[in-house]
């Protein structure tokens, strides 16, 4: 991976508008897309998920803001109160059949694909 692309990925983790981008993993499981996100300091009731056929947006408010002081060369104080992530899906999904679970700070989204596999019998 080239250095500039790597830098862009790392830089993208830090928003300067009070939002933090969560660590996230997207897995294609054939019939469904499974997305997990690490959301420390978040309670289940403070997670908001909105999905369409081709994208998912997750917003999660933290129990308390994270504030780092005396840090960084650009600014000395930064605080975050919300995780926010928008994910473009690799294939269209059926939003009505989507489901989510939240356990120990990990959000798991199960997004069934619109085009399901069809069994073809051999004649």
């Amino acid at each position, binding site marked *: 991976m080239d250095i500039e692309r790597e830098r862009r990925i*790392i830089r993208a983790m830090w928003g300067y508008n009070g939002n933090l981008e969560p*660590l996230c993993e997207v897995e294609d499981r054939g019939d469904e897309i499974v997305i997990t996100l*690490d959301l420390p300091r978040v309670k289940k009731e403070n997670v908001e998920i909105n999905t369409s056929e081709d994208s998912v947006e997750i917003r999660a408010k933290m129990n308390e803001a994270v504030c780092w002081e005396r840090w960084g060369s650009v600014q000395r104080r930064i605080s975050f109160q919300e995780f926010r992530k928008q994910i473009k899906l690799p294939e269209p999904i059926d939003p009505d059949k989507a489901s989510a679970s939240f*356990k120990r*700070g*990990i959000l798991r989204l199960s997004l069934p694909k619109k085009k399901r596999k069809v069994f073809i019998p051999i004649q």
Partner: protein
Amino acid sequence: MTDTVRIVEEEGVRLKNPIVIEGLPDVGLVGTIAASYIVEKMKYHEIGYIESDLFPPVMVIHGGELKSPFCLYGDEDVVVVSSEIAVPPNAVYPLTRALADWFSSINAALVISVTGLPVKNRIEIEKPEVFAVGNSEVALKELRAKQVELLQEGFIAGTYAIMLRECYKRDLSAISLLAQCFPVYPDPGAAASAIDSLDKFLQLGIDVKELLEREEEIKLKARDLMRQAALSASGMQKSAEQDMPIMYR
């Protein structure tokens, strides 16, 4: 080639056949989190650092003091190798060779690499299990004596895998402790399990309660390093750890 990585010891450091704990960034940052917690709890001092042209041109500042991100901590009996940045894939071999040469020069009694074993169902696991790999019959005997479960089949990839081999070449006893962990999320719970297992070898009596209580804070602080480590891992065939080896005995 080992001079591309230099181990620089602080003056006046005296080591007596130390046990080495290596906790470099890898899956779940298990080794890094465990090493940092051990250094903090045991109040180990910095005894040296590692430098190389193969590392990114990065220094860290702590309390206004300039430091190398690759540091050595410890006392006469224990050395902890830790890093605050991911090991670039092209530095893995020179780094492990240089470290193994240094471990040999200080007559290390045992080299223990602490790392993670990524598992898909980690979310369902309350207390992660720890498995071990040894680099010799002596190391395996030690592991059996301490009743640590051995990894029987599979691939291991990354710095710790090469460390086992480089130590073997130098007749150094080395083991890897692998705690079940999240593949791409920092995992303080897995680090706590690894520390519990380490204590069978070190008897430092480290209580992991505080580590577990600070889990969420650690996860937040470790996000950037986790992302770096995940990017670096893609160049180290880490995905092979999920594969089944073809050769059976």
